[in-house]
């Protein structure tokens, strides 16, 4: 079921075009990852959806009979740190904004701040503030959740627990719209990827579709050779070189390994992996798909 429709959204600041004819349908019970380079317009798109800034043209439609703010939860990139207010008070205040809020105890459990409910928000650590922000985003028991860089500031355990909670929310029927620079986290959880590039949605599909389009496999090795030595191999889709570490995206690993045979003496630590979102995106940038 479609919960949100984005129709022909354009946004310009003066003569600078930020978004160009963005069209999307967001289905319920799914996790949608919005990815792209810094400055690609991800936050602008989210801000337009959330009515924080006006679009130059186009329409945003939440397909609900209720006030869209009653069914929306938002976790912004920057934490809310209200002075002279306790954890208990901000949770209670946020609950009061909504018609059908989650219970106080449930939100306190999500925040993981059961032992800090009488602490001032200013006294919380970065990770605790992030978890509290997540609980506040869920206060209204939203149908659609917007998460902008949600795991920044969380340690690895907290990040793991966070994504487990997101998966649980998806299974309970929630729609999650997320942006993150931790691409490996998105790779494991998102059902649908939107790549924002050159002001448009350059790719809209699953990770599987992205791999079949951009390369299934990733061959990694260390070598003192130059990038140019491998660039003309037939099965190379793209090469990423960091120091002496090569990452080659290919659709045919066996053929590529055969092609690499003459160089094997100059190659160490050869590994074959499934291509990652990180490398696929890099490939996308280099190829400048339009």
């Amino acid at each position: 079921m479609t919960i949100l429709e984005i129709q022909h959204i354009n946004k310009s600041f003066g003569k600078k075009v930020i978004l160009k004819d963005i069209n999307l349908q967001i289905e319920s019970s799914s996790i949608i990852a919005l990815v792209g380079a810094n400055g690609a317009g991800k936050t602008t798109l989210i801000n337009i959806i959330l009515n924080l800034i006006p679009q130059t043209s186009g329409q945003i439609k939440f397909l609900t009979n209720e006030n869209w703010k009653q069914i929306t939860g938002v976790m912004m990139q920057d934490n809310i740190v209200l002075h002279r207010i306790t954890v208990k008070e901000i949770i209670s205040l946020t609950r009061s904004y909504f018609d059908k809020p989650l219970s106080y105890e449930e939100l306190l459990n999500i925040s993981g701040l059961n032992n800090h409910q009488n602490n001032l928000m200013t006294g919380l650590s970065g990770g605790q503030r992030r978890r509290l922000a997540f609980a506040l985003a869920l206060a209204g028991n939203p149908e659609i959740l917007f998460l902008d860089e949600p795991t920044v500031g969380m340690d690895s355990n907290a990040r793991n627990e966070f994504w487990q909670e997101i998966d649980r929310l998806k299974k309970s029927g929630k729609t999650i719209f997320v942006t993150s620079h931790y691409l490996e986290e998105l790779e494991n959880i998102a059902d649908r990827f939107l790549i924002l590039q050159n002001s448009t949605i350059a790719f809209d599909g699953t990770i599987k579709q992205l791999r079949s389009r951009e390369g299934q496999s990733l061959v990694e090795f260390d070598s003192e050779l130059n990038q140019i030595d491998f660039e003309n191999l037939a099965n190379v889709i793209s090469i990423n070189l960091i120091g002496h570490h090569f990452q080659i995206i290919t659709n045919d690993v066996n053929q590529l390994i055969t092609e690499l045979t003459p160089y094997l003496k100059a190659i160490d630590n050869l590994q074959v992996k499934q291509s990652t979102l990180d490398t696929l995106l890099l490939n996308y940038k280099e190829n400048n798909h339009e």
Partner: protein
Amino acid sequence: MNKFIFQTKINFKRIVLRNKAFFFFDMLLPIVFYILYTKILVSNVPVSYLKVWNKDYLVSMMIYACMLGGIITTANTLLEDQMSNFKLFVMLSPLSNFQYYGSMSIVLITLNLVSSIALTTVAMIVNHVSISIGLLFELISINLLGTILLILIGVLISFARKPNTVNLLTNLVVFPLAILSGLWWPINIMPTWLQNIGKVMPTYQLSVIDKNILHQTTQHIGPFINLLIWSFIIFLILFTVNKIQKEKGLVTQ
């Protein structure tokens, strides 16, 4: 309604109850000025004149207290809300702007009410000023209405969005406005051209209305129209600046 009441309760806690130093100085400053200019810095003044001065200066300091609460507290609180991302949080929540600003106005108006009562109590004790309950009620009511205009000025200043600029603007507005309006010193000791400017200021016109109430003289429509025109102008500027900031995406920063 529940969310409005809760928001107001939280605002009371964070702006007043848990901000004691600020609350104390917000109330104390006008009281100190009142005592200074009616008890300490007055000499060789005829008793009959002093009696009127003590009453008039009470009105001036009541308005000055409204300026501190209405302009400085509003601008600083809204700035704090912006810096702590609370403003953005509210914009994304089902709480309307009207409820957000309305709940804050209730807190600030109450703060000014407490200031006015404290000032009157000090005037009664220190200078034996006598004002009937009815007159006092009228005075406070008019001042609280005037506070709404001052809150609008505070909101406008908060749109500067940077702590240094907001501090500079509050100082540039509040103190010159207090002096020009004759709240600190009698307006007639200033040069005529400055008096002419001062008499256009909303706080001067508010003091004219107050003094007419206090001395039970006839009210004229002029001061009320002046306040309405100022409110309209400030509201128009507020609306325009807000629209421009939203257009430029500044509200999310």
